């Protein structure tokens, strides 16, 4: 094994071009587990810790450009207003020690269906900034997850940042696990209201081979809210609409039975989380101020 220690982003891109099999390591919270347990013996480890700009973020007009290695603890602390859904999701990641090291770039690189950031990114709307010596491209988050632990990155590409739409309305995140800390999601659900476009977006975690949006549920809800004039009136969403939304969210799952839960349970739980997060965000939208309800 070789340990590559680029001192700059340009050096890192050059190293990845020269050694496409190199495994990037930033927080190490996924990669080191695999090495410690002898599950993986990469030819090259590409350390990204010395590249400072990866831990920086810029708040723009429309979106936040979040460096790939910004730790979850920094997202929780600094970006709660701009990225409330991701901040809530970050708070559910493992433990303080892990949140101090891990970041969204690693979550995307690993692309586990159970990664905590994914539902929040899907719901908010995001693009992954991938770069190689050949150039930079922005990959829409919907096109990024291509299979179980697979993503749209080319072998010579590294994740520089993720561009996440700034919240224009309430966002919520919900995760099912056996306890609050140190838990891989049995399943998770993110929901964002976008009052500017009068749309609702969702993200489902750990209930399909990849993180997915509940697109049919979104389409149904968007139409129902529009037809009923809910965005203007701010009235309570009728239980029938919430119920149908939950059922469609449940239907968007394609889960498996595993040690953490059964497929049936996951479908059921996703429906419940969809209904709850819709209720929480809608209450926030109506100004009832139940701000952090549902925060794990």
């Amino acid at each position, binding site marked *: *094994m*070789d340990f590559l220690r680029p001192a700059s982003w340009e050096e890192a891109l050059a190293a990845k071009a020269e050694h496409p099999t190199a495994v990037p390591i930033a927080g190490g*919270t996924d990669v080191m*587990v695999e090495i410690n347990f002898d599950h993986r013996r990469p030819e090259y480890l590409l*350390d990204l810790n010395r590249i400072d700009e990866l831990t920086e973020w810029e708040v723009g007009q429309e979106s936040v450009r979040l460096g790939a290695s910004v730790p979850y603890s920094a997202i929780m602390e600094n970006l709660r207003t701009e990225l409330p859904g991701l901040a809530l999701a970050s708070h559910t990641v493992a*433990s303080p*020690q892990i949140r*101090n*090291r891990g970041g969204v770039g690693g979550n995307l690189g690993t692309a586990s269906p159970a990664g905590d950031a994914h539902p929040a990114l899907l719901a908010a709307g995001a693009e992954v900034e991938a770069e190689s010596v050949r150039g930079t491209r922005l990959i829409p988050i919907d096109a990024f997850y291509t299979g179980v632990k697979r993503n749209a990155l080319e072998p010579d590409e590294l994740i520089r940042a993720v561009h996440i739409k700034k919240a224009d309305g309430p966002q919520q995140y919900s995760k099912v696990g056996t306890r609050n800390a*140190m838990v891989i999601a049995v399943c998770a659900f993110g929901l964002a209201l976008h009052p500017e476009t009068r749309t609702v977006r969702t993200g489902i975690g750990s209930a399909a081979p990849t993180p997915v949006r509940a697109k049919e549920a979104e389409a149904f809800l968007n139409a129902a809210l529009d037809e009923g004039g809910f965005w203007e009136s701010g009235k309570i969403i009728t239980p029938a609409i919430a119920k149908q939304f939950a059922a469609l969210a449940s239907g968007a799952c394609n889960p498996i039975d595993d040690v953490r839960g059964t497929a049936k349970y996951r479908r059921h739980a996703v429906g419940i989380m969809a209904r709850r997060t819709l209720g929480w965000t809608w209450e926030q939208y109506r100004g009832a101020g139940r701000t952090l309800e549902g925060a794990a």
Partner: protein
Amino acid sequence: MRVNFTVNGRPQEADDVWEGESLLYVLRERMGLPGSKNACEQGECGSCTVRLDGVPVCSCLVAAGQVEGREVVTVEGLADYAKHREDAHPGGGCASGACGTTLDAAKRWQSKPTDGQAGEAAELSPIQQAFIDAGAVQCGFCTPGLLVAADELLENTPSPSDQDIREALSGNLCRCTGYEKILDAVRLAAARQEEAVQS
């Protein structure tokens, strides 16, 4: 591969480090610092918690090569680290111990290494003393990680709520105590710290 970094205020060099080796392994097996415990090796238990440039991390998940040029504080250096904080920042704290201290204080910090093995006769940090006084140590395996995590909590949150304490220690597993005595110990250390600031 060779790795140079600072451990408990002293520059250290490790040779023939395997590229996939963890910081925890280097500390325990190459530097004779067995205080950080090796339990789960997957970041679940917090027994290997150390400060890396002031930030609590699981040392089992940090690749040795990633600590090149950086500062690590382990439980063996906790008493000195707390002493430095008390001297240089009464009532507060600095993140890394690499702050703008007086030359005198810096010398004292660098030149007083603890024994490194078992810390015999070494002074205890307030959080260590509180763990003893509150009966928070049973088998002791989780204790070093808890001490490092709890010390960092008290540095940044001098009057923690119970919720703060539970959250700060949520990454550290203890299979003996049921945590109650550990929570007592942190409350005790916080209370003593407040008294010291007020007096």
